[in-house]
């Protein structure tokens, strides 16, 4: 018996997930096709490269990170480039996802404090935004806005000699506030995408989710892809 013969054949859902999105394959649904996943992880890679090269410049508390990257001088060189690449990949992701992230009236409903609290207590009643809920859409737009703020302030800090001192001072403050809020948002984003909601991380790795996952987290999208409801025009 050869090893190849005993290996199970590739999961058809994962094969479909290379190109197609929002399709049902057996018991699974394709949520993120390959392009989506590659874009997302490119953004995450450059985000963390910029973060780890920026934190030791921010405070000596994170000085040990600089040693991992080859010293603070390397960080000073690397950080702006990592940031520029982060912005570029963010721009691609923005265009890629914009169509699915459009805010609708029912997203506003989702974002009411009681609803968010119910969501965190796992007591939400299925108020649905479609493929992504109001919180995810908000994160998407906040991240895009944050990336613009980081880029503009970062450019001033990259070439400080080219700008008047008032602007340099403002840039440092804007860069700080934006990145702190960004890190807080990303901490919750990672938590929700991994431990808090099992099955979600898998969707960003292999592309697929199970039907029960879809029904629990995004009931309207679940009905849409199963053909029980037509998609929003």
């Amino acid at each position, binding site marked *: 018996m050869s090893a190849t013969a005993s290996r199970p054949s590739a999961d058809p859902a994962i094969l479909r997930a290379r190109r197609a999105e929002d399709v049902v394959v057996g018991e699974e649904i394709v949520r993120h096709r390959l392009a989506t996943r590659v874009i997302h992880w490119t953004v995450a890679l450059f985000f963390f490269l910029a973060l780890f090269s920026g934190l030791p410049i*921010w405070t000596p*508390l994170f000085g040990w990170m600089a040693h991992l990257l080859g010293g603070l001088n390397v960080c000073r060189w690397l950080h702006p480039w990592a940031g520029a690449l982060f912005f570029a990949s963010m721009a691609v992701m923005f265009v890629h996802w914009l169509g699915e992230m459009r805010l609708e009236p029912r997203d506003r409903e989702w974002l009411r404090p009681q609803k968010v609290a119910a969501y965190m207590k796992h007591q939400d009643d299925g108020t649905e935004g479609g493929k992504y809920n109001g919180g995810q859409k908000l994160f998407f737009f906040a991240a895009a806005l944050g990336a613009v703020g980081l880029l503009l302030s970062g450019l001033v800090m990259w070439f*400080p*000699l080219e700008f008047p*001192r008032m602007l*340099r001072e403002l840039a440092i403050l804007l860069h*700080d506030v934006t990145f702190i809020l960004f890190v807080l948002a990303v901490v*919750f984003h990672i938590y929700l995408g991994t431990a*808090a909601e099992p099955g979600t991380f898998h969707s960003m790795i292999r592309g697929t989710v199970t039907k029960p996952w879809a029904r629990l987290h995004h009931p309207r999208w679940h009905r849409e892809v199963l053909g029980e409801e037509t998609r929003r025009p």
Partner: protein
Amino acid sequence: MTTQNLEIRRSSASLWGEKTGMRHLPVVSKFIDTTTCIGCKACEVACQEWNDLEAVPTRQTGNYQTMPELDAEFWNLIRFNERDFDGGVVWLMRKDQCMHCEDPGCLAACPAPGAIVQYENGIVDVNPEACIGCGFCATGCPFNVPKFHAKTGKMAKCTLCVDRVTSGLEPACIKACPTGCLQFGTKDDMVALGHARVEQLKGNGFANAVLYDPPGVGGTGVVTVLGHGDHPEWYGLPADPHVPVGVRFWKSVLRPLGVVAMIGAVLGAIGHFMYQGPKEPRARDGEPPPPPGA
């Protein structure tokens, strides 16, 4: 550079501080009397020579000034200012260089550990080997002193000849001054000298003469006698220099707040998970339970 011989009082981006308390040195200061400066530029030359700085091309700006601004290779600049005054013209010369602030904005703004140090004797110095050339010090300095050196990629400025001072010599600029308008000694002595000179000037018709030692930066390691003390801006000096509020706010409010918030967010996520657990599909009536981890 001479850190072995000099006690460090303060160091940039230092978590615990570097002060050992081993050596006690009196705070030193330069004394500059703008009223007796003749603009001969001997101090400029002495600075270039002693510090082995390259010759920088002069730039004609319509007066006697060597160049418009300090430079990474030019740390000592006599500023020539002309002002209409009392129906005539006054010609004001001031030696511009690092002021060696008691509370240095450059050191406060610098993110690289040890790149800017303040020695026990008050001298503020840049350590090129630790400097990452980010230019934050230029944003922190209220006197626009530190300059970026394009060739080395580091910041550079007057060291108050820390190497000479450590060996008991006076700074090169002081040594070269032919009129005695530059003096060097302990801060206390230089302040006393300054006040005596100011009194003398007041008796000679300079009613507004002052000793410029701005309290906004805790005083400076360069005290300057100004004949027209009511107009420090005539000499290119800020009336009330401070470490920029943005730099202060960033270092003492935003940074600790940010660190606490980030740690709080991680703990919050862990706490939520321990309290609430994962959100998983529950089996519905008549359906098999979903596979684990799905």
